[in-house]
């Protein structure tokens, strides 16, 4: 434990599992379940569970004491990386200026309709009220979604989990989803959708599809933060939770 509780362990483990994930993804010729982020998540958690069993403590404790110090160092870089999306956004400023009304309408109504559908799915699956409330704000980035969930009486750590799984799903299935629903024929919508569903990861993926998609995803990350702040409290009041 003493030797493991060094930030370097978390950094080392993250790099090791991610590189392994990349190798596996390449070896399997891009099998979607072997996406590097998904593989490294499952493998990393498994390793922490094994260490916990070995040292006779809980996994949560091993996570906070052994992995988190190093993990936080890597996690910190998400902030400047998100800011960097201003560059692809600026490069397609022409698209933003031309379509600002469509962007706002699409995001506001898209988010609202999504919330209705998410509530329906939650009810069908049999989630309790706290669970449903924790699902509403996941189109915003984690830092917006968590306090929002808390303010309407949901479980913020469930929302954080949702935001992470959103990103993992988009990272793993983004290509298939875009193909299945033929989203790329409308770069505006594809970009906004990827930004709203996959947040920063969705934006990185959208950028691979094209400069318009990338710029739109960056717009979506910013705008959903504001839209959710306004919509989520109203919506949760409307459905009477």
């Amino acid at each position, binding site marked *: 434990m003493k030797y493991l509780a060094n930030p370097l362990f978390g950094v080392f483990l*993250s790099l090791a*599992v*991610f590189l392994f994930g990349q190798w596996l993804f390449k070896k399997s010729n891009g099998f979607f379940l072997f996406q590097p*982020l998904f593989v*490294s998540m499952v493998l990393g958690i498994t390793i*922490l569970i094994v260490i916990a069993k070995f040292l006779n403590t809980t*996994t*949560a404790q*091993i*996570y906070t004491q052994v*992995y988190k110090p*190093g*993990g936080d160092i890597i*996690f910190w*870089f*998400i*902030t*400047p*990386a*998100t*800011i*960097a999306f*201003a*560059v*692809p956004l*600026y490069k397609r400023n022409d698209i933003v200026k031309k379509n600002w*009304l*469509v962007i706002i*309408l*699409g*995001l506001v*109504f898209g*988010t609202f309709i*999504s919330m209705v559908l*998410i509530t329906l799915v*939650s009810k069908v699956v049999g*989630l309790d009220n706290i669970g449903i409330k924790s699902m509403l704000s*996941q*189109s915003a*980035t*984690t830092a917006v979604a968590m306090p929002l969930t808390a303010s309407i009486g949901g479980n913020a*750590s*469930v929302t954080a*989990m*949702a935001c992470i799984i959103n990103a*993992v*799903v988009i990272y793993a299935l983004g290509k298939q*989803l875009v193909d299945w629903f033929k*989203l790329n024929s*409308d770069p*505006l*919508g594809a970009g*906004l*959708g990827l930004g*709203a*569903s996959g947040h920063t*990861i969705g934006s*990185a993926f959208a*950028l691979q599809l094209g400069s318009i998609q990338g710029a739109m995803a960056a717009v979506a*990350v910013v705008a959903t933060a504001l839209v959710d702040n306004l919509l989520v409290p109203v919506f949760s009041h409307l459905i009477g939770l």
Partner: protein
Amino acid sequence: MQKKETQKEKSAPLLVQMFIYAAILFVSQILSDLIPKSFPVPTPVIGLVLLYLLLTTHIVKVEWVDSFGSALISLIGFMFVPSGISLAANLKIMEQQGVQLIIVIIAATVILLVVTAYTTRFFSFLVNKIAKTQLHLNDHKKVGGAK
């Protein structure tokens, strides 16, 4: 070949680029703290808007932030590894309602992607149509006026 070299010359040194990002981060952090807690706007979102505004007003040139930004964006998959592994702290919730939550979250991801994309497509179509009919009406008026 020559074009590539001139492009390289234009791009600001790495430390200068890092300095700009650090400065924007610092200012956005302060702004984020100043915004009331009931309407949370996180540091990265403020930073994105701030850098975008600085670029549009030409206070910051693209070459000053471009290559470092692209490098950061290309590493984003890796940066999310700690977030993924952080689920290890929530294994208890997963034991209780895990299956339902995972189903809803995966469904929600697909819903958000597809619904937002198609809603945008619909409004795109609508706005274009309205613009066209207005153009059409204007044409009519002009023709009418000529008579």
